[in-house]
């Protein structure tokens, strides 16, 4: 069931497919900050988060024609693109470092040290979570997604 407080993104995606520019802006305005936060929590790297956020929207442009509202929910479909983008990013990093042994947070930290001590402490705590817990934390609490 659709939460009455949430927009029906299946309809908005259909409008975008029909060429409605405003629908594109609605999708961007809603998802862009959430996706950015998701990448920030996973990578702790502002530049990388910006690049990946743009990649996700580029992929959306290429794939939107293939989206079928009868087969599933736009929001879930879109978040899957974001997750796949992150996995691709990790794969590229594996060439340099084995991500099973060194966390991407530590790689990013080495490249861009965080100046704020409190934030560093918080990010280290989050980094102590499992991958799945990090994902739940960022999607639920920072990106405001429901558990459904």
């Amino acid at each position, binding site marked *: 069931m659709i939460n009455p407080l949430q927009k029906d993104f299946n309809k908005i995606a259909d409008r*975008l*497919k029909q*060429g*409605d*520019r405003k629908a*594109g*802006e609605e999708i*961007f*305005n809603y998802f*862009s*900050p959430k996706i*950015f*936060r998701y990448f*920030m*929590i996973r990578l702790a790297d502002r530049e990388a*988060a*910006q690049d990946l*956020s*743009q990649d996700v*929207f*580029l992929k*959306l*442009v*290429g794939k*939107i*024609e293939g989206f079928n509202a009868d087969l599933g929910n736009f929001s879930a479909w879109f978040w899957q693109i974001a997750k796949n983008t992150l996995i691709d990013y990790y794969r590229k990093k594996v060439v340099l470092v084995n991500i099973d042994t060194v966390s991407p947070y530590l790689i990013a930290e080495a490249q861009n040290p965080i100046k*704020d001590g*409190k*934030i560093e402490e*918080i990010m280290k705590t989050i980094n102590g979570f499992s991958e799945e817990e990090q994902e739940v934390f*960022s999607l639920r*609490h*920072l990106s405001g997604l429901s558990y459904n």
Partner: protein
Amino acid sequence: MIKFLMEKITGRKNFLLLKKYTAPSKEFLNESRGFFINELKKRGVIAPARANIRLSPLRKALSYGFASLFALSSVTGGAIVYAQKENVDFNHPLYPMKRLGENIQVGLASAEEKPVLQDELAQKRLTEIKQLIAEKEEEIILINSQKIAEAKQISEQKDREAKQIAAEDSEAFQKIEEQKKQDLEQIEERHKKEIEKIEKENKVKTERLDDDFREAVESVLKDIKPSEDKPEDREKAKDLCESLREKIKERKEVLREEKRWPDFENKCGEAEEKD
């Protein structure tokens, strides 16, 4: 309880800090939005922007004028109805709308209904005054509990530091004791100022409501006609006097000093029942 509150406050602060840290910049969002929309256009997903339909300047001005007027009246009307229905309190942004609605009601009321309506308004003002006073007390309790928690935290921290140093260095120990005293005084001063500010703000609001209360009561008094021959009018005047007497008693500490209503004694007798 205090420890729990402090943990809650710290947790909330950390969460807000994290939200700020993970938020994208406006510049990035604006740039990305433009990039995304351009890409949609390039790939033919959306069409280029439509040309604007041209209207004559007069039609344009008229349509804007009507649209603005319609929007303004709809919004104002809706806000008044909402504010009246919800009986919003003095601190609510729609409170002026509630007062506007009340003034309209009084303006439209018949001569017979008017004093009864004003009597109801006096009651509302009285309730709001009580609510304001209660809110002030709650805020002061909260500030005091925060003060105790902060003072306790500082004391404990300084005591710990002092214990470590006392054995080795008496001068440093003295310094920590002085620092602790200064910190505690600062906390005391800061909270005192906060309480003074709340009391001052609350006083201004209460005075404003007291003025409105007086105005409503005076308006009721103006309409009371106890000398009328009709028994129903005498009965009505008696009821209104009784209702006002109750309200005046509730704010007697403010009203007794001023003796602003000789009219009350003329029309209703003694303002306060003698003990």
